[in-house]
């Protein structure tokens, strides 16, 4: 049975309330495909029946299972390639000059999913500044506790390892653990995983030199995007860098940013060194 309008609307409202993510009409297929595993696990005859059961049951855990299923995204190592090239060939050399006294960098992967993005950044830092004795701290946040747990463990299947990870980095930073690959401890120690809803205040995260906020703003409405970008400016150092996803921009959303092109990649920096 196809997803009923009532079930779809209830899920949209739940996801909006818990994560500020907007699921528009036409995303019924997404809701259905993502919730099929939960419906099967619960023994429900179809997704609509599963949703109805959760709706009347008021089980908070099941509500969050639905939110997590709809806010978790596929990811790969060095996703899209070019932003990581821009980071290592342009952003990092500049930060190495401007931070040569403190010899310390803090990077935030703000929608880290299962950790591939943050570990990709960690590998670049490990093989450059950390190898030269710098301190590098990475914060990885996501709304989903399930993906955070996977990221914290740093264990990936062979299929996941095939996704965009250069073989020379695999052999340097991972070890085989049975059928899985485990991120080496020195890399894991660089990263702190923490649950966070980007639509809520960023409490106690400190200041960052670089923020990766990629492929997540697309899920929010304009007001929430503006609010998030404004608060990101407050935790980004005045000469820091923001990386967004390929389909995302600050233009027309938050005027406090200026855009710079590094090759074909747009990076965003607080306008007037954050004094605007």
């Amino acid at each position, binding site marked *: 049975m196809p997803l009923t309008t009532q079930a779809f609307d209830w899920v949209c409202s739940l996801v909006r309330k818990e994560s500020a993510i907007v699921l528009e009409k036409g995303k019924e297929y997404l809701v259905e495909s993502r919730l099929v595993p939960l419906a099967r696990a619960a023994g429900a005859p179809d997704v609509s029946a599963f949703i109805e059961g959760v709706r009347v049951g008021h089980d908070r855990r099941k509500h969050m299972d639905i939110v997590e299923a709809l806010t978790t995204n596929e990811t*790969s190592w*060095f996703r*899209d*390639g*070019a*932003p990581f090239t*821009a980071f290592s060939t342009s952003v990092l050399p500049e930060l190495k000059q401007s931070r040569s006294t403190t010899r310390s960098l803090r990077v935030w992967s703000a929608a880290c999913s299962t950790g591939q993005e943050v570990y990709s950044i960690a590998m670049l830092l490990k093989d450059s500044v950390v190898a030269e004795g710098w301190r590098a701290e990475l914060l990885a946040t996501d709304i989903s506790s399930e993906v955070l747990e996977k990221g914290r463990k740093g264990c990936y299947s*062979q*299929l996941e*390892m*095939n*996704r*965009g990870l*250069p*073989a*020379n980095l*695999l*052999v340097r930073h*991972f*070890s*085989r653990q049975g059928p899985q690959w485990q991120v080496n401890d020195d890399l894991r120690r660089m990263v702190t995983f923490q649950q966070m809803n980007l639509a809520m205040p960023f409490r106690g995260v400190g200041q960052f030199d670089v923020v990766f906020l*990629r492929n997540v703003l697309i899920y929010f409405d304009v007001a929430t995007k503006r609010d998030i970008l404004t608060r990101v400016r407050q935790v980004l150092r005045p000469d820091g860098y923001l*990386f*967004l*996803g*390929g*389909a*995302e*921009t600050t233009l027309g959303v938050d005027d406090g940013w200026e855009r710079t092109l590094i*090759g*074909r*990649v*747009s990076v965003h920096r607080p306008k007037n060194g954050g004094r605007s």
Partner: protein
Amino acid sequence: MRALVVDDSRAMRKIISASLRKLGFEIVEAGDGAEALEVLKSGPLPDLATIDWNMPVMDGLTLVTNVRAAREYRSMTMMMVTTEAEHGQIVRALAAGAHEYLIKPFTTDALEEKLALLGLMPEVAGA
């Protein structure tokens, strides 16, 4: 661009060749390492070779070693595409001269991402 697909499994050659053709590669195939060396001697040099590890007559690691030793083949990119998935085997293949390593089974996305790493696919730019 031209790709040499080296695998003793006809079915696997078909799968890899079909994926590469979709990306615009012209394909030549070989069933083992010795046959691959013959193909290299007789025709224009491919841009890419995908190379299985376990094959009769001449295995993939030996092929990689032979190709790397030949100056005239230097510009060809070599990617192992194999079920061999131990850490030490990947290290050996890279040390022998392979540029990348893709473990079977793999998805089309994974193949394309590896080709992007090798500069053989247009990368998607961040906007």
